[in-house]
């Protein structure tokens, strides 16, 4: 399991968030999640300009054996989706924190859901393994 990037925040549903300079937020799933799912075969992305609610459905990642919902860690509006995932969903497996980004969001005023620091997420993961 690779190290958790220090500049990201994490959710209990194994999503990561990166705050960009322009105020938008990039979201993906963590290394733990991609390993649990196995090779991804398909990603169902939201539409650009779609409105998201914190904790609501945002995307679906599908492997050979499972299809998992990815929830919006913040509410807001979809600014961009990673179209490359349409042809190469395995980018999420290969580089979950970089090329495997899923959605970029313009956060709304509703604020964010519960977010963890890298350390807190690591503790959370350790507890899961027990």
């Amino acid at each position, binding site marked *: 399991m690779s190290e958790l990037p220090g500049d990201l925040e994490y959710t209990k549903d194994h999503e990561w968030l990166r705050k960009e300079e322009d105020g938008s937020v990039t979201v993906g799933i963590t290394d733990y999640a991609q390993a649990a799912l196995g090779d991804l075969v398909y990603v*169902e992305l939201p*539409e650009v300009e779609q409105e998201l609610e914190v904790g609501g459905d945002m995307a679906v990642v599908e492997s050979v054996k499972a*299809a998992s919902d990815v929830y919006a860690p913040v509410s807001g509006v979809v600014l961009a989706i990673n179209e490359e995932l349409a042809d190469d969903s395995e980018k999420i497996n290969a580089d979950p924190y970089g090329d495997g980004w899923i959605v970029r969001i313009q956060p709304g005023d509703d604020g964010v859901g519960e977010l963890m620091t890298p350390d807190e997420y690591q503790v959370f993961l350790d507890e899961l393994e027990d």
Partner: protein
Amino acid sequence: MPFIPHTKDDVQSMLKAIGADSIDDLFDEIPADLLISELNGVPDALSEMEIVRLMHARAAKDGAPLCFIGAGAYEHHIPAVVWDIATRGEYYSAYTPYQAEASQGTLQTIYEYQTMITSLTGMYASNASLYDGASGLAEATLMAVRGNRASQSKRVLLASGVNATYQSVAESITGNQQLTFDRLPLAIENGTTDTAGLAEHDDPFVALVIQQPSFFGTLEDIDALTDWAHAKGALVIALVNPTSLAVLKAPRDWGESGADIVCGEGQPLGVPLSSGGPYFGFMACTQKLIRQMPGRIVGRTTDLDGQPGFTLTLQAREQHIRRSKATSNICTNQGLMVTAATIYLSLLGPEGLKQVALTSHSQTAKLLDKLCAIDGVEQTFSGSFFHEAVVTLDRPVAPVLDALAENNILGGLDLSLTHPDLGNSLLICATETKTDADLQLYASELSCVLGD
């Protein structure tokens, strides 16, 4: 192994274990007004001999009339070989045989079926079938909503000639998902969708359903309708008769970019009329929409040893993985009917199916000519038609049909109650099973009935 696995004592001890007093208690969420206390017409227990006699007597009441009714289910000749093979135990008694390790034969048959459907419709992929044409349409509309989220509308437009019963079924099935259905107006002169008002049609819609041939047998301007719907940001659902696809333009070629979803009733392909069922619904779609398609899909692949094999695929759409977010609650197919259809299509081949289609059409055209030559009968619509047509009588239809029935002829479907704007109208159909002598008999009988 006993036929009935539980004794009364077994049942009692199970009820006791879960704390229920009776089996009826387990159904207490069904409202009392929906419960039937008696099944009238179902006698108390009978011996096998008594039941056989009873069934023969009841079946005899059907008689063997000459049937000129179409309206969604068509009497075509089914070669004896079809059901000789389809009723083999391996096919007939198999129950949900989808495991790759146990059912390669069935999976291959379904794969062949899917290939034939894509060949007929011109579409990218087909599923393993649905229950029937009507529920298939419902599934197609739900699929269109999922596949066209950019539209944000849940309003489905129906061309004027979409089967009204199919609409009722679609409304029932989709009722809790807030879909609404609106029908475009009928151009009474030629019996197709009135395209004159389309330019002003502003209300958004997620999909347009075009039935071809229409319920009335008329041929819609599918290119104009398809292009119009696409220009309005809607998907196009083609609701088609599979036999007609041997001679009519494949939905993939409708308009500039083709239909998005194709569905319809598969009964004409080797399935007997059987008083309404079982039938099967077929469904096919574009590559873009394949993950929104409900139902089973069989794929071909290679196993660990590199040998070719068949297996269910794209299962992440289905209930056992996605649960409430699955594309549908349907998790099976009409395996036996689809087996029969596959055998039927294999036997006929493209040329044979074309012959069936052309002969059905020419017999209908001949029948129409003969009937319209009788005083009191007129062809209702001026437009082109395929293997079904509407005639208008100079008097109420029901008594005429009764009189024909007395002479062992089922003259057609009375449209006057459901389509009062068409007057005393009758939907007639002649398939390849009707000989020239049959057509002449109908014409003579009708002439007698109307002459009185």
